[in-house]
């Protein structure tokens, strides 16, 4: 817990350092504006600096920055003409709609398919699953998304090309338009989890305690679910969160852009293009906190899953 707080603090500090050593685009903009309108660019820049409190000493600006970050006072988004927190919230609404099914599917399917693969090791089923896993994490998500969109939306016309932001969350239309993004992300995230799950399960299914379980008369299904899957979840828990986060932070941005989903990723991208500093900061900080919370969750889950690690040791 303390660790997560510390990491988030470090990241916020790095962000501040990056910001304070950079030429602020809004000052330049103000100067350019002034020059264009025949005013004094230097004076305009100065006015802008004062307005933004940039003449304060560094440590006071740092404290202000910290305060506003942690009190969720993330400023005003010029590009969207709304508070940054509101923009993030709106984006989250759309991001969650595909992230939740994607995460659930990955969490359920990944370990199970890996287990199935291990149980049928070196059979054609295992090879098929392994091939799928490799395909999934080798194909760039955005590329896969483009291809699928081309095939299913443009050529076959099974699904809409344009995302309808007004579709109700639990409607057939929403399901249809979210199938592809969810599919793309699941193929991307499931591969690594399947591989780890397969390799770890393979180790446990040949373990001595598996033999003990069979000697007790445990049925194969119970043996796999209780005696193989359960211990597999321990090392797997360290992979799952990492895999999901990496994808969430990186690929979901591209998937949103390809499919035109107005979620957080797209907002980040548009803010980048529109040079909306507050919004860029807001969304990156939000993603960062997700990452920190994710890592914290991973630690907790790992500790809960493995009885050999006690809380006291940490």
């Amino acid at each position, binding site marked *: 817990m303390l660790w997560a707080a510390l990491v988030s603090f470090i990241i916020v500090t790095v962000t501040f350092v990056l910001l304070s050593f950079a030429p602020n685009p809004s000052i330049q903009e103000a100067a350019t504006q002034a020059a264009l309108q025949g005013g004094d660019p230097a004076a305009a820049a100065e006015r802008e600096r004062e307005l933004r409190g940039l003449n304060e000493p560094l440590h006071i600006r740092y404290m202000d920055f910290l305060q506003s970050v942690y009190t969720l006072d993330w400023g005003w988004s010029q590009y969207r003409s709304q508070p940054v927190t509101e923009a993030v919230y709106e984006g989250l609404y759309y991001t969650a709609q595909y992230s939740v099914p994607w995460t659930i599917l990955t969490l359920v399917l990944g370990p199970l398919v890996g287990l199935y693969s291990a149980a049928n090791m070196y059979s054609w089923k295992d090879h098929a699953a392994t091939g799928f896993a490799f395909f999934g994490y080798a194909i760039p998500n955005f590329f896969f998304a483009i291809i699928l969109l081309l095939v299913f939306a443009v050529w076959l016309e099974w699904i809409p090309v344009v995302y309808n932001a007004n579709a109700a969350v639990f409607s057939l239309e929403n399901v249809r338009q979210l199938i592809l993004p969810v599919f793309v992300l699941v193929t991307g995230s499931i591969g690594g989890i399947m591989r780890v799950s397969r390799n770890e399960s393979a180790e446990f299914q040949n373990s*001595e*305690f598996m033999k003990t379980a069979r*000697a*007790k*008369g445990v049925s194969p299904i119970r043996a796999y679910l209780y005696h193989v899957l*359960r211990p597999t979840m321990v090392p797997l828990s360290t992979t799952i969160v990492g895999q999901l986060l990496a994808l969430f932070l990186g690929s979901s941005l591209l998937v949103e852009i390809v499919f035109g989903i107005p979620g957080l990723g797209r907002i980040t991208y548009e803010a980048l293009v529109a040079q909306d500093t507050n919004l860029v900061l807001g969304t990156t900080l939000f993603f960062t906190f997700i990452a920190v919370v994710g890592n914290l969750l991973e630690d907790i889950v790992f500790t809960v899953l493995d*009885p*050999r690690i006690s809380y006291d040791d940490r």
Partner: protein
Amino acid sequence: MTPDTDPLLEVANLRTTFDTDGGELVAVDGIDFSIDAGETVCIVGESGSGKTVATESITRLVKSPPATVTGSVRFDGEDLLEASEERLREIRGYNIAHIFQNPQEAMNHCYSVGWQITEALTIHTDASQEEARAKAIDLLDRVGIANASSRFDDYPHEFSGGQKQRVMIAMALVGDPDLLIADEPTTALDVTVQGQILKLLDDLQEEFDMGILFVTHDLGVVAQIADRIVVMYAGKVMERGDVYDVFDRPAHPYTQQLLECLPGTSDSIGGIPGSLPSPTDPPDGCRFAPRCEHAVADCEAGGQPREVEVRPGQAVSCVYYQSGYDASVVEADTGDAETSRGVGDD
């Protein structure tokens, strides 16, 4: 031993083979043995002689494929090799229980020992959680775990090696089995702990009136626990008999050499020269012939020699005991060795 009642377990012509890249591997090659209720039978032999595979073939614990088990295993009048997988699962852990060599690895590190002990009850009976818990705590207490009720919820890593094996025994006994198969249960333990575990098994055997099939390569352990022993080598039975008979008058050269390896019994410290024959391509004749100091040409021809009874209950598979050979050549020079009565009889 009461010969007029059926034995608890009767294994006949048990043969276990594995399909490997290097051809068919014969781990157990047609062995017979039986165990009566309340009796302890030891299977003795060096590592790789097929003891473990033999015991795991009884309830078909060996993975098949790649293993193929043939022959017959009659338990309480039922042939286990004919039984369905479902029926076998009912028997495993309830009628026939197993203890394995390495208690460190034989327990699942993710579950409390209590959960693992009661698992067999959950599967085989409809005992309530409270009943199962009470029974497990009682058993933990019986196998000598102090504060059993508080240790019920502890995890395997919180127990020492000897304690783990005690827990494993409790786990095996929870279904009140008629037969306990213990596969080198003391090998991984300290010598002092070994003694305690053997004593515990002995006590529990009387209490539960179970047959024990005990596998070991350690003749010292055999002396402590066995009623009868079966000496195995390279998948075949070399000799069998009452533990005192076999220890006092080992008939087979292999048994004799095994006994010589025991510390304090002779000045031979080199062990038995040579190594086990290839299980994919076993030699003709007696399996032990290539390493036997008495081997003659006939030893390396045909199949494993027929078993010949040298005295009541003691039988040996060696060419020298067949008719027309002089058994005195191989008989142990333990002094008062009586002449073999096996020659000529069938």
